[in-house]
């Protein structure tokens, strides 16, 4: 009975939402011309990257902090017990993983570089890096991670640190995250590079810190 009521309510909500969306007028504010007009000064040639790293770069800075926060929350919960290597997968899978990982690294580098003028960028490149690490873990080639040591902590935080340092340094000559047009391209590339590495570790960490398989377990 309760289930039916909930389903009915969801259906009614969807219908109301759908019907209200149907008589939507064109929006009075259109930001696309403004995005295109300032593209020259933004330091990148792709409008999505310009919005993410320049016009609304402050949102992205805080989004990276949200990802770090998710990791802190996981680290605060997991016990100190040792992590072990998962059961090694079949040799064929291991060979395939060894073949795939270099290709994934190349793909990640390409995505990072492509972000300046076509869809791509640090988040996409970082996810491919993370996927490579998870693949290595699932095939038994990389152990799950215990509580991170100093080196891993710096690696996880590096992207955010570079972003934060650039944001604060730019404050000196104007506003928070206000790139001078001449330097915008270089600064954004630095941030994206550091972010790719850290996001790769971070996203992989969300998986590997929680992996508690021990040797010999089924």
């Amino acid at each position, binding site marked *: 009975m309760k289930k039916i009521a909930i389903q009915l309510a969801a259906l009614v909500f969807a219908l109301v939402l759908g019907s209200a969306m149907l008589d939507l007028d064109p929006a009075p*504010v259109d930001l696309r011309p403004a995005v295109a007009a300032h593209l020259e000064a933004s330091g990148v040639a792709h409008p999505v990257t310009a919005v993410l790293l320049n016009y609304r770069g402050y949102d992205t800075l*805080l989004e990276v902090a949200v990802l770090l926060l998710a990791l802190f*929350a996981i680290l605060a919960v997991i016990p100190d017990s040792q992590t072990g290597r998962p059961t090694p997968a079949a040799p064929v899978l291991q060979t395939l993983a060894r073949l795939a990982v270099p290709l994934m690294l190349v793909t990640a580098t390409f995505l990072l570089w492509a972000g300046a003028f076509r869809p791509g960028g640090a988040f996409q490149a970082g996810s491919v890096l993370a996927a490579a690490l998870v693949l290595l873990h699932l095939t038994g080639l990389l152990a799950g991670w215990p509580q991170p040591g100093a080196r891993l902590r710096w690696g996880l935080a590096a992207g955010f640190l570079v972003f934060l340092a650039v944001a604060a340094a730019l404050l000196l000559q104007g506003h928070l995250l206000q790139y001078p047009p001449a330097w915008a391209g270089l600064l954004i590339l630095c941030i994206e590079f550091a972010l790719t590495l850290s996001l790769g570790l971070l996203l992989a960490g969300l998986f590997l810190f929680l992996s508690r398989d021990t040797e010999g377990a089924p």
Partner: protein
Amino acid sequence: MTEALLDPLPGLILLPLAWGIAAFLLGPGRGAAPAIVTLSLQFLFCLQLTHQVLADGPATHPVGGWGAPLGIDLMADGLATAMLLLTQAVALPLAVYARAYFRPGAPEARHFWPLFGLLLAGLNGLFLSADLFNVYVTLELVGLAAVGLVAMGGGAGQIAAALRYLFATLLGSGAYLLGVALIYGSYGSVSITTLEPLVAAHAPTLVGLAGGLMLLGLMLKTALFPFHFWLPPAHGGAAAPVSALLSALVVKASFYLILRLWLGPLAPLSALHPLLPWLPALLGTAAIFWGSWKAIRALRLKMMIAYSTVAQLGYLFLIFPLLGALGGLQAGIMQAFAHGLAKAAMFAAAGVLIKATGQDTIAGLAGAAQKLPLTLFAFGLAGVTLMGLPPSAGFLAKWQLIEAALGQDCWLIALVALAGGLLAAVYVFRVLRQAFLLTAPESSLQPVPRSLEWAAFALASASVLLGLRGVELMQLLHVGWAG
């Protein structure tokens, strides 16, 4: 060149981000000293901002130098500045408290300082934001940090409370985000200042739906009755410094947003029907009675304080029918200050009592007053504020609420406020009566660090003394008041 570094608007966001991440890099359990030093700096920034806002009106800072609607603006009017002031004023003593509370190397406190830093960055960013989507990002920061703090240590009860809290807070921010998406679809902008005239000029049904979704999502995050189900286990089960932070600050953040939307972009919608503002007031009334009743019946000390939070949040929603005049807003913000300081003090005092007696029931507090007079004094002072006795800030808040209610012929609200004060007296005196019982001298208590007691006392006395200096705070709320 150097004055750019002293601009409080970006400073209040960058500083907590910096010490939060520094604490992570320093390693598990470390980072208390940089946190306390930087928090003092943040507090000074806040005082400077207050001065600046009182002298020159609302302060803005266009991030990226683009300006809304292409970029994101930071904006501090009187309301935002007041909330920033409350946040730093509660966080600084709690940082001193937490430093003494967590034993060095305690597993439950490994990641307290990084989570605390990012929580404060989220709160400050939320109060300063003038952009609906940016507000969503800060809401996520605040929500995830709060869930992480509740889950710290990883006990089964804590994980269960944290998960329940996570689902509630995700549902709340999901509803808010859906509303933002609908508003962006209707107007093509998420900047609050750009939206205000647009909504006033033309608001299709979809915008009404969006506004409803955003407000409902935020009410869930504020734990307004009947959405309070997640609050008592989360606030009652966490470590004492965490409970204090959550009850004093985190729930106030979503309340601030409701207020900001209600008075700002959604004002044309809230004026559609004269009974609409009575809906939050009705839920607030129910919260006061239900929360107080559960607090009176609670067996565990921290559960009693958590249910008292449910009740005290109710007062915040009583002001909605009175928002036609500045007095209503002043009453609400004074209540947010009174409850924020007093509840932080009460949880801090409860933490001392629990550490000293080694248990968490109200019945087990017998004789505590003889051994820990300072802590019980702090608890009593915080209770004075919650009951609304003079000269506390709680008294001032209730006085203003009743004055605003009678001024606008809403005597029902005045009656609810008076009844709530009596109920608060019942649950506060239940604890004090038990603690002042005389027991045999051999009953032993664990020794506790003195700084714990003094931090609780500082917060409690601030909640009382603010009642004497309320005029300055009220003055601040004039800045940026449109109605």
